[in-house]
C-alpha cells in the first residue's frame, strides 16, 4: 500500500488537547510495560485485526471485506460512549491486535466540513503502537482515502499528481 504525505504531521483536530495527550502517553506507557513483545506478536497473528477510521458505516464495510472486526463487535450491542471507546483501544493494544487504519472520510469532510474527534482520539492513543497499519492515501488536507471503499475519481486524481 502506497502512503502519501504526512497524516501525523497534518492531523488537525485531536480530541481534548492536553487531556488527549496525557491519555495517549498513559496508554503508551501502559502498553509498553504490560505487553510482552513475544506475547503481543503471537496475539497479533491469532486474533482478528480491527479496523479504525472516520465514519463507522465505512469502517464496517472495509472490515467486512478483509474479515476484520470493529468496535461494534466488541460493544456487542452496548451503547457506545467515549469511555468505552478508549477502553476498546486499550484492550486491543493489550491483546497485541493488528489495528488497520483506513483514515479520514475525505468525501464526508468535503460535504460536512466536520472532522471526527473520536477518530482523532484513537489515533492519539495508538501513537507508537507497533501493530498499527495505515491503509489509506492522503494528498494535502482534503484528498485521499482507501481504494476499496472510497471514491475512485479522487484516487486517480491523486495518483496522477505523482
Amino acid at each position, binding site marked *: 500500500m502506497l502512503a502519501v504525505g504526512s497524516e501525523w504531521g497534518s492531523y488537525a483536530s485531536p*480530541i*481534548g*488537547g492536553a*487531556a*488527549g495527550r496525557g491519555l495517549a502517553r498513559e496508554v503508551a506507557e501502559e502498553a509498553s510495560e504490560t505487553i510482552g513483545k513475544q506475547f503481543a506478536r503471537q496475539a497479533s497473528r491469532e486474533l482478528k485485526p480491527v479496523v479504525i477510521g472516520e*465514519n*463507522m*458505516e*465505512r469502517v*464496517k*464495510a*472495509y472490515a*467486512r*471485506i478483509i474479515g476484520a472486526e*470493529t*468496535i*461494534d463487535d466488541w*460493544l456487542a*450491542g*452496548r*451503547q*457506545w*460512549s*467515549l469511555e468505552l*471507546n478508549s477502553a476498546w483501544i486499550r484492550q486491543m493494544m493489550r491483546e497485541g491486535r493488528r489495528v488497520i487504519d483506513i483514515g479520514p472520510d475525505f*468525501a*464526508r469532510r468535503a*460535504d*460536512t*466540513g*466536520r472532522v*471526527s*474527534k*473520536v*477518530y482523532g482520539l484513537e489515533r492519539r492513543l495508538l501513537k507508537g503502537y507497533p501493530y498499527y497499519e495505515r491503509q489509506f492515501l492522503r494528498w494535502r488536507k482534503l484528498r485521499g482515502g482507501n481504494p476499496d*471503499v*472510497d*471514491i*475512485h*475519481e479522487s484516487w486517480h486524481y491523486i495518483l496522477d499528481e505523482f
Partner: protein
Amino acid sequence: MEDEGTIEIFLEEYTAQMNFLVTEGFCESPLVDGQSTWSSIKYKVVDLDVAFEISLDARDFIVSTYITLFTEAKRPGVFYVSQGRVIRLFLGEILKQLGTQIPSVREELKQWKADTGKHFKRIDRSLRALKMPDTKAVRELFRTDAQWVAHFLRQYGKEIIQYARNYWGL
C-alpha cells in the same frame, strides 16, 4: 445522553420528518439498519433502483444524506464505490449542481449548513472537553437537519431523482 441514546433520537426525528415520502406514495417503507456506533434509514423510491439514505455516525453526531444506487448500496462490504463506480452521492453535492439551474437552491443550501452548523457547535464543544453532549442539543441538531432534508426532498425530489437517473443511466 444517559436516558435516551443518540440512535433513538436520530430514528425518531428523521422518520417523523421523512414520513411523507411513504404516505404520499413516493417511497417504500423505510429500511432501518445499524449497530452501536451507526444507524441508517433507507427510503427506496417506488419502481426505481434508487434510495434516499440518511446515515448517522453516532460517535460524532454527524448525519449524512445520500442518494444511493439501492441494490449496490445494500451489499455487504460496499460503501462509496462498487465495481468501480460511485454508488452513494451526497444530497449536498446534488443540490450544488441543481443550484446552477435553480437559484433558490443555492440560498437554501447555505441556510441549511448555517442552521445545522449553529447546533453542531454546541455538540462539538462537549466532545472537545471529552464530555457527551446533552440530549436536548442532539435532538435540536437532528430535528433541524431533518426538517431541511425533508424540505429539499419535497421541493426538489423530482429534480434530484432525475439527476440520479442521469448519473447512473437508469
